[in-house]
Structures are given as C-alpha cells and as structure tokens.
C-alpha cells in the first residue's frame, strides 16, 4: 500500500493564498477602453473622419513604439502589447488632441509618451508621470499653434460632414480648411474664448452671453479636444469605471471638488471676472481628467487619504492654471505636476495600521 501511495502524482505547491479574485491587468485596461468608448464614438460623430484617423495614428505609433522598446529591453512583447495599457495611453492621448492635429504630431506624441514617458522609466507600472499627459504637455509646448486649432462641429451624416478624402486631407496632408468654421478662423473652446475676451475688459456675463450655454457643454456641441466634448458621456464612462471597481470615488470626487471650491470662492469674490462653478466643471477636460486621466493607477497614490490629497491638488491646480496661467486649460499640467508629488503623498498618507497608533508607529495604548 505504501508503494502505491508514493506513486500519487507530485503536485505543484504554490504558496497561499490558493484562490484569486480573477482580476487581471488586461481586464482593468479593457474596462477603461469600454469606459472611453461613448465619448470616443461621439467625438468621431461630431468631428468626422479626422478623429478616427487621429486615433488610428496614435494607436499605431504607440503600439509600434511599445513593441520596439519591449524588444530592445528583452521583455516578452506579446503579453505586454496585449495587456491593453499602451492602448489606453494612446486612446487618452488621441482624445486629448484637437481633431485637426496633423498625423505626424499625433504620432510624435504617441512615440514620446510610450517610448520616453513609459518605457524609458521601466515600462508598465514604473512610470512616474501619466504617459498620455506628459506627451500632451510636450506637444503643447512644442506645437502651441497646432494644439490650439479647434475644428468646427461638423457631424457625420449631416450636410456639413467632411468627406472621407477631406478627412484624409485634414489629418495627413495638413489641409485643415474643411474642418474649420466657414470664416476660416479657428473655433475657440469656451475656456479659450473666455480667456481672450477677459483681456478685452469684458465681464464674464457679457462673454458667456455671446452664445454659450451649459446645455451645450453637457451634450457636447462646443468645440474642444476630441475627448472633452460631452460632459454627460464622460460622466457615463466614469460611472461605468466606478461600477466596475476600476476607479474609486476619491480621485474624481476630490478633483472636481477642488476646482469647484476654487471656482465658488472666486466667483463669490468677483462674479464679473471669475465664472461660476458650473462653467468650470462642464467645460474643458476637467471631467475627462477627473475620471480618466487623474485616475491612472500607475501615477496616482494608492492610499485612500493620498488619493484625496492628490485629487484635490489636481483640481486646485487646474483652476489656477486656467485662471492665471498662460494656457486656457490646465488639466494636463495639473496632473503631471501632481504626479511628481505622488511618492511623497503616498509616504505621508499611509493609513493607521490595525493595532498601532499610526503606520510605522507604536502599538495602540502603549503610553501606559
């Protein structure tokens, strides 16, 4: 009998736990991609072919860079390409650019974001800065004109819609005219418009009276980056991520609260120079940033209190840059700045450990 027993199969003996919740990096990334779908599709609808081309270009350039870098670093290419993290970065970058961005700028951004922003730091999980935002900041500094040329809304299937070849021209041949408003001037985002007009000694009320309405901001008939068109769809995608457990409430909540608090205080102080809370929340990429950018796991704090601090910092900085900075929008700068503080935030916001006065501290009640 003993001999029969010794022939029982030799089994693997991994260390406990011997159970897993079933989550995976790729399922997290897939959820983010699904969350981005409504706003991406809507943006394709609003601006037509150029948005689609833009997204294809960033994806192709980004994934190619990822593959090359992985190969150079002697890492397995396939599992990392398929984990979806590069896809998310490229989508976020593409959605943060104006639809009229020429292909080579978009491609340069993707190569920089993935190559320098992510892989040079050590690849997935090791990058201190949000790669999509570091790429966008690089592009914004290098190509301010291209990054602030906003197309007019010309929905697909409508009379104004761009034809396929016109779309190709916008993205690949630098012929932006068909995408721009009829008077050939660049359409302005509400934030940009406000910023220029405020310098002309107009009051907020007068400027917003020139045809802005919150309803437009909610449903996205105002110009802007591809991803910042409709507040409602961004919110929808964000709620989906929250429901899937991919993002918590802390970072989006505190980021929105941070901007809202600043807007409230200054709006009360001087309503003619500072627009109200609703304007700040619904315009620009604040919501997009709060739900999809600042929540990037790799570059945000992991401690609950840290996430509140970080989110609030993003929100306050966004408001400061919008209001007093040189650019009409500040989400990408705010996020990148706060990224730099994440290790410090994480270190000082560790939760109180069970049975201890504080993290790394003495046991509770040890003063007796």
């Amino acid at each position, binding site marked *: 009998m003993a001999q029969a027993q010794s022939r029982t199969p030799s089994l693997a*003996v991994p260390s406990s736990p*011997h159970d*897993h919740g079933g989550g995976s990096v790729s399922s997290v990334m897939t959820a983010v991609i699904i969350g981005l779908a409504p706003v991406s599709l809507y943006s394709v609808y609003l601006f037509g072919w150029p948005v689609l081309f833009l997204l294809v270009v960033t994806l192709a350039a980004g994934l190619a860079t990822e593959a090359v870098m992985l190969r150079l670093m002697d890492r397995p290419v396939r599992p990392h390409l398929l984990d979806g993290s590069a896809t998310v970065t490229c989508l976020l970058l593409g959605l943060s650019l104006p639809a009229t961005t020429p292909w080579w700028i978009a491609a340069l951004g993707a190569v920089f974001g993935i190559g320098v922003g992510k892989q040079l730091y050590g690849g997935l999980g090791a990058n201190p800065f949000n790669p999509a935002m570091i790429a966008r900041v690089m592009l914004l500094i290098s190509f301010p004109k291209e990054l602030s040329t906003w197309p007019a809304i010309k929905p697909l299937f409508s009379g104004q819609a761009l034809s396929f070849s016109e779309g190709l021209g916008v993205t690949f041949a630098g012929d932006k005219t068909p995408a721009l408003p009829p008077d050939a001037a660049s359409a302005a985002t509400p934030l940009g418009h406000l910023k220029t007009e405020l310098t002309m000694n107009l009051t907020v009320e007068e400027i917003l009276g020139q045809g802005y309405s919150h309803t437009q901001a909610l449903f996205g008939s105002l110009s802007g980056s591809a991803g910042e068109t409709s507040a409602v769809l961004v919110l929808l995608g964000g709620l989906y991520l929250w429901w899937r457990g991919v993002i918590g409430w802390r970072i989006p909540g505190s980021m929105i609260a941070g901007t809202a608090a600043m807007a409230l205080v200054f709006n009360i102080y001087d309503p003619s120079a500072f627009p109200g809370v609703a304007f700040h929340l619904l315009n620009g990429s604040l919501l997009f940033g709060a739900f999809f950018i600042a929540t990037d796991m790799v570059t945000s704090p*992991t401690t609950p209190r840290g996430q509140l601090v970080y989110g609030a910092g993003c929100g306050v900085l966004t408001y400061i840059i919008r209001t007093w900075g040189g650019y009409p929008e500040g989400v990408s700068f705010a996020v990148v700045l706060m990224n730099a503080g994440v290790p410090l935030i994480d270190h000082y916001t560790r939760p109180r*450990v069970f*049975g201890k006065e504080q993290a790394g501290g003495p046991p509770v009640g040890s003063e007796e």
Partner: protein
Amino acid sequence: MAEQHTPILPAFFPGGIEPEEHKELTSESPIRRLPVPDVLHVPLKQHIGNPAQALVKAGDHVRKGDVIGKPEGFVSAPVHAPTSGTVTAIEDYPAPHPSGLNGPTVHLEADGRDEWTELDPRPDFHKLGPAGIRGRIRQAGLVGMGGAGFPTFVKLNPGPDRAVDTIILNGGESEPYLTCDDRLMRERPKEILHGASIIGYTVGAKRIVVAIEANKWQAISAMLGASVGWPQIEVVAVENRYPMGAEKQLILSVTGREVPSGRLPADVGVLNQNVGTAYATYRAIVLGEPLIERVVTVSGEAIREPANLEVRFGTPIETIAAACGGYADLGRLIMGGPFVGSALHNTDPPMVKETNGLIFHARSQVPNEPVMPCIRCGACVEACPVSLVPNEMYHLARNKEFERVQDYDLFDCIECGCCAWVCPSNLPLVHYYRYAKSEIQAKERQKEVADIARRRTEARDARLRREKEEKEAKRRAKKKQTDAAKAESDTTDPREEAARKAADKRRRMRGKSPQSSDDGNDAEEGDAEGPGTAATSDESNQR
C-alpha cells in the same frame, strides 16, 4: 428564521474581501465517521512548537488513547494512539507540509478492536480547578483546531496580569469551502457550549460570545437553541466577510476592542477559541478522551463526493480521498482553507490535528495567468484588513530593503492573502512578505550570534589585559627583589624565560593547564574563537 432575530454585527476591521464560498459542496453533508484504516502514520509533530518524543517502540501494543509521544518543552503537545493496535515502526514519513519533507512518525497497525485505554471522565470539572483542567487539556493533547495548531493549555494560562473577561468562540469559518465547524455547530451544539463553559471557568471569564458568520444561519439557530439555560453565553451573527475568522479582526468586530500590535488578545481581556477546540475540550474533560480525531471538510472540484468526515489522526489523505469516491483531474491539494492553508505535494501525508480541510482543486483551478508588474492600482490597500500598504511592502521586499519594509509594518501582516486575491497583476504578494520576514528573522539570529561572540571577545581581551598587567607587576616586584638580593648572579636567559611563559600560556589557552580550572569558562571561549585569535594573543603576551 434565526437570521431575522439575530442582529448581524458588521465587520469593524478595514478592508476584507468576499470570495466565492463554495461551501454548498459540503454544507449539507452531515458529519460521517470514517472507519479506522488498517495502517495509520501518526506524526509526532501535529502542532506549533517542539515535536513530541516517541514513548513506544516497534512491537509495542497500544490501546486507543495511550500516549505514544510525550511533549518536549513548554510549547508542545503529547500525541495519542488513534486506535488500538501494534506499533510497527518509528520512522520518518511524509509530513503534511508544503516542504514535502519527512517527519518522525509512529506507524501503527490497527487490530480492529478499537478499544479505549482507561479513561477518567470528569463531568464535575469544577472539582478539578483551573490548574487541574489545564493539566488535563495538556495531557489530552489539545491544540487550536482552527488550523493554527497552537497548544491550547498555553492559551488557557494568560498569566496573572491579564484578566480575561470574555471568551470568543470563533465560529467564523470565513475561509471558502470549509464547513466542518458549521456542521459541528449544527450537530453538536450542546457539547460545544459545554466545552466553552469549561474554558470560561478555567480562565475566569464571565462572558462567552459565540460569533458565527451570518451565512451559517442553521448553525446560528442551533447554537441559539442550545444556549438556552446558559445565561453567560451569547450567540451573535457577524458579517460575512473574509477574514472575519482572523483572531484580532473578530475580536474587534465582536467586542470593539483593538488588540495592540505585537500583543495578545488576553491583553485586552479576550480569549479566542475555535468551536472545534471547545468541542475537543468537552471530550477531554467530560468524557476524559484525549484528542485522537477531528472533523475535516473534504471538498473541492476534483473530489468526487465532497463530505465532512470525522477522521482519526494518522489516516493517510489518500485513504480519506478514497472514502470520498476518489479524485480526478487533481491540480492542487490544499490542507486547510484556500487562503491560509498549505499546498501539499501529494496525497501520501496523514491527516493531523490542525487539518480542518482537504481541498482538491481541479487542474483548471490552478492559476496559469501571467504575473504582471504592479500597476499601483491600490486594490491591495483597500483590501488589507490590517491597513497596510501591500504594494509598497512588495517593492521593498523585492528590493531586499528589509529595514524599510519593517518600517512599513511588515510584522503586522497576518498573511490572510486578501492583497494577493485582489491583485490584478497576479503577484504572489504574501510570498514576498514571508520571504522578507524569514530573511529578517535569519539576520536577527545571525546578529544575536555575532553579539554573543563580540561580547565574549571583549571579555577575553579584558581578561588578557588584566593578566598581562598583573604579570608585569609581579615581574617588576620580582626584579626589584632579585636586584636587591643579588645583582650579579642572574643566570636565567631572558629569551628562554619568555619562550617558557609563551608555552605555558598556550597550554592554558587549550585548557590543559591546571591554572585553567579557576577560569574554565574563559578557556572554553578561547577554544570557540579558533586558533587565529589565540595566536594573536600569544604574540601580544610575548611583547
């Protein structure tokens, strides 16, 4: 039903998870007694602490309940013959441990009569007094039945400066698959409560709280029914959340008391006992039976007929599996629950006191997901029931920054596995914490040894200095004397004198000289430090 009458205490501890329970596989299988096998392999170490020492030899006939291994040291437990029969050998045999190593084991051939040794039932346990009860619990070989296997009598002796006012009877059983405590509570609630009252009497606790996870409402109702007439016993339902069964987490949820880091539950006046231990206490005191069997949940997708079996210790797992219809497509065998249990190499090892579950996972349940880098999602921080920052601890342990990982409260980690369970990157996080803990402990032991060696060297250097000074003083005194007595007649060659002294010294260092008897310890130390240092001291002596 019961769930409507009993309020559910929420989990007061942070984090926690809700894994799939898989309890339905066995929760409706009544406890079935497994026939005594023909051959048993009874390990002499079935508990935390020192292994027991064999008291029998090959050829001895033993009766059920005879002591076959006596405890060695304080934290240890005796081992009893699980049935009557003949000892065939005392040899190493595969131990139920992930290492797959062998351990000293008593091999027993059952005679089929299964006759008890003389028992001494004491239903009137009050007459024994607390010390008497503790003694009997120790003699009965009781250890924690929740899976840890810590000798019970040690826990029942919290010491004079720790007044225990509350016993928590842990019926949490928050690990997936396991239903042995559930069945025990449903089928033998009176006996459990009787045992609990003995434990309460032993430590002088006024209050006994039976805490059961809310998903086991039949157990709650059975225990509530049985508790009628025991005014000091309360039955409470606790939230269904892993790791509710963890000692400190359960104490916090039930009593609101937080056990300080590095301290014992008794420091906050609480004693935590598993319901199985209470049942074993009842049998040990009231029936006088030593611990020779227990209920084990045999479950998992690879076993054909999952069941709750009452099994004698020493029964090979293969025999237990055969009694459950055998297994197919076995991918992983876990002793204990899937979260804190250990994986075994094969089905050879025997069942022991701490075996509360045997889980036969199918091949498809063994993970083959690739391990990815940490993406800092923070899910582990949310899930940790101790509020640690597991992702940082992982990086520090991986980079061997052992000092910093201790600053991140590594030793507060209870290795419950919540962090690894939620990790999307499939990182074996707990494995890294175990690694860091064992490295740090090994370093500390090394440091202790080095400290002892350093102290010895210092003591010896001081002694040598002192001796040299004394010798010098003696020499000077002698020289003065000789000079005064006879300046011209000095015939001794000074070099010869020095050589003789050095030889003398060397002999003394080896401990052969009669002089070494008065400081024998020092001589031993000189030996322990090896020839290198001895040579140096010789030279210094000659100078």
